[in-house]
C-alpha cells in the first residue's frame, strides 16, 4: 500500500507541476521565451489567496478567484513592461530580463510579507477517502488537485482547438510573421497567453500550498524550475505534453524521495531534465524542429 500512496502523492504533485508547466509551455510556444518569473507568479498567487482566506476571512473559492484576477493582471503587466519592448532583441537579453523579473517579484514579496514562512490553510476542507480498510488514505487535497488539473487541461485543449483566440494562438506559435499577415493581432495574442498562464499559476499556487503549506517568498522558484523541466520533458509547446511531463515528473520526485534519498530528490529531478534534453531535446510529445539557415 505504501507504493500506491506514493503514487497518488506523486500524481497530485505532478498535477500541480502540469498546471504550472502549461504556463511555461504556452508562453514558450507562442512568445518563444522562457518566462523565468512564472514560478514567482505562483508565489504571489498563493500569498493573495492566503491573505484573502486568513486575513479577510473570505471562503476559499472567491479567494482563489481574486488571486486569479490579480495574477492575470500581474502577468499582463510584466509582459507589457518587461518583455514586449524586447520582442525583437536577442534571446540572451530576454532571458536576463526574465531572471530580473523573477528576482524582483521575490524581493517585493520579501519586503511585503517578510521572510518568515506563513502557514497556508488548505483550500480543501474535505478530509478525503479512506480505502482498503483504512490502509490506503487519499487526501482531499490530492483528489481536488488531480481533478482540477484534468478539468483545466480539457478546457484549455478545447479553447486552443475550437475558439478564435485559440486558433490565433496556434497560428502565432506556428509562424509569427505569417500570422501578422493574416490579420492576427500578435501582441494581443501574446498578452492573452500570458494572462491565461498567469491565471493558471494562481490556481497552481493555491493547490501547491494546500499540499505543502509552508509559504515563503521563495516557494515558487523551485516548483517553477521543476515545472519547466516537466514542460521540456513532455515536449515544449504541447499541452498534452505538459500534462504527461508534469505527472511523470511528480511521480519520479515522490518515488525518489521515498526510496532513494530525500536530499537528493531535487538532484534526481534535474538529472532527468538533463538526460531528456540530451537524448530527446524535443521531449516525449514534442514536434521535431528543423534548424533553418
Amino acid at each position, binding site marked *: 500500500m505504501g507504493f500506491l500512496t506514493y503514487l497518488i502523492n506523486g500524481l497530485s504533485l505532478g498535477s500541480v507541476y502540469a498546471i504550472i508547466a502549461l504556463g511555461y509551455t504556452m508562453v514558450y510556444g507562442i512568445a518563444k521565451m522562457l518566462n523565468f518569473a512564472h514560478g514567482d507568479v505562483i508565489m504571489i498567487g498563493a500569498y493573495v489567496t492566503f491573505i484573502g482566506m486568513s486575513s479577510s476571512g473570505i471562503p476559499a473559492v472567491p479567494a482563489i478567484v481574486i488571486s486569479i484576477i490579480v495574477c492575470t493582471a500581474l502577468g499582463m503587466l510584466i509582459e507589457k513592461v518587461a518583455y514586449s519592448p*524586447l520582442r525583437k532583441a536577442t534571446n540572451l537579453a530576454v532571458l536576463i530580463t526574465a531572471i530580473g523579473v523573477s528576482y524582483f517579484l521575490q524581493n517585493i514579496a520579501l*519586503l511585503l510579507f517578510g521572510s518568515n514562512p506563513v502557514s497556508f490553510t488548505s483550500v480543501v476542507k474535505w478530509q478525503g477517502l479512506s480505502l482498503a480498510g483504512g490502509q490506503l488514505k487519499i487526501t482531499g487535497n490530492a483528489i481536488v488537485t488531480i481533478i482540477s488539473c484534468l478539468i483545466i487541461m480539457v478546457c484549455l485543449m478545447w479553447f486552443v482547438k475550437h475558439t478564435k483566440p485559440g486558433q490565433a494562438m496556434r497560428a502565432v506559435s506556428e509562424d509569427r510573421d505569417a500570422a501578422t499577415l493574416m490579420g492576427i493581432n500578435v501582441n494581443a495574442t501574446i498578452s492573452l497567453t500570458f494572462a491565461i498562464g498567469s491565471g493558471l499559476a494562481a490556481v497552481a499556487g493555491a493547490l501547491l500550498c494546500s499540499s505543502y503549506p509552508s509559504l515563503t517568498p521563495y516557494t515558487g522558484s523551485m516548483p517553477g524550475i521543476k515545472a519547466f523541466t516537466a514542460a521540456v520533458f513532455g515536449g515544449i509547446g504541447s499541452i498534452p505534453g505538459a500534462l504527461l511531463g508534469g505527472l511523470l515528473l511528480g511521480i519520479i520526485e515522490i518515488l525518489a524521495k521515498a526510496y532513494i534519498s530525500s536530499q537528493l530528490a531535487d538532484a534526481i529531478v534535474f538529472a532527468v531534465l538533463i538526460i531528456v534534453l540530451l537524448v530527446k531535446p524535443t521531449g516525449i510529445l514534442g514536434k521535431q524542429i528543423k534548424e533553418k539557415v
Partner: protein
Amino acid sequence: MKNMNKSTQKLLSTIGVIVVLYIVLSVMEGTGNLSSLLSGLLVPVCAYSLVAVGLNLCVGYLGELSLGHAGFMCVGAFASAFFSKVFMNTIPDVPRFILSLLIGTCFAALFGFLIAIPVLRLSGDYLAIVTLAFGEIIKNVINVIYIGMDSKGLHFSMKDMLSLGMEPGGTLVVNGAQGITGTPRQSTFTLAVILLILALVITHNFVNSRTGRAVKAIRDNQIAAETVGLPITKYKLIAFTISAAIAGVGGVLYAHNINSLIATTNNFGYNMSIMILVYVVLGGIGNFSGSVVAAVVLTLLPELLRGLSTYRMLIYSIVLIALMLFNWAPSILEYRNKHGLTAAAIAAKFKKKNTKEVS
C-alpha cells in the same frame, strides 16, 4: 593592431587602478583606519570579481548564459578546502596553499569540461536551464557527502556520519550539510589581488588570441564560423572550461577565507549565480574590467549604506531589468540614437576616443 593596443592600454589602466586601490586599502588596514566590516570584505570582493570575470567570458564571448557558475565556484571551494584540511599537518602552509589552489582550479575546470560536453550541444534558454540544473545538482550532492579520515585512509559515504565506519580517533573532513569546518584561513588580500590581476591578464590574452577570435566568430555567427572550417565544439569547450576554472579560483579564495564552508542557496546556489550575473551585466557584457568594478561597487555600497541593505536585492533586480531594456529594447535604442545617447556619443563627449564596444 591599433585596436589591440587600445584594449591592452585599457587592461593596463585597470590593473593600475587595482594596484593603487590595493596599496591604499593595505595602508589603511595596516594603520587601522579600515573598519572591521570593510576589511572582512576585501577577500570576498576579489573572489566575486574572479567569478564575475569567469562568467563574463562565458556570457560575453561565448554568448551563452550560464546559471551554474556558482556551482563551479562551489567545486573549487570544496575541492581545495578538502585538500587543505586533509594535508593540514603534513605539508607546510605555503606549498599546501599553492597545491590546493591548483587542485581547486583543476577540479572546477574538470567539472566545467565534463558539464560542457553535453551542455554545449544545446543553446540559449535550454543551455541556461541545464547549467542551472547542474549547479543545483552539485550543491545537493555536496550536501550529502561525508568523508572521514583516520589512520587507514579516507572513508566515504553518502548516507551519514556513522556509516563511514571510522576508527575512534578519526577526523571528519566533510560533514554532509555542515560542510567543511576549520579550513586554514590563508586567503590574504594581497594574494586575492594578485590572482585577480592574473585572471584579467589571462582573459585579456585569451580573447585577443587566435582561439579567442574564433570563439567570438562562433558567438557572432555559428553557421558562418562552421562554414569557414572552425571546429565549433573544441573552441566552445575551451572557452567554457577556462570560464569554469576562473570561477573555481574564486571559490578557492572564498573557501580559505571562512572557517566553516557550507553549500547553501545563498553562497553557492541559484542566488549567487544571479548575483554574479548582475555584476556581469552591470559591468558590461564582454567587459572584464567592468565586471570587477561592478563587483566591488555592488558589494561595498550596500555595506557602507546600511539602510539600503534591505532593498539591496530589490535594487539589483530593477537594475538588471532596466539595463536590459536600456541596452536592447529596439524602441529605446532608436530613442538613444536620435538624442545622441549612444555609448559612442557619450564617450566622445568626455573627449575620449571611441571605446571599443562589444556587442
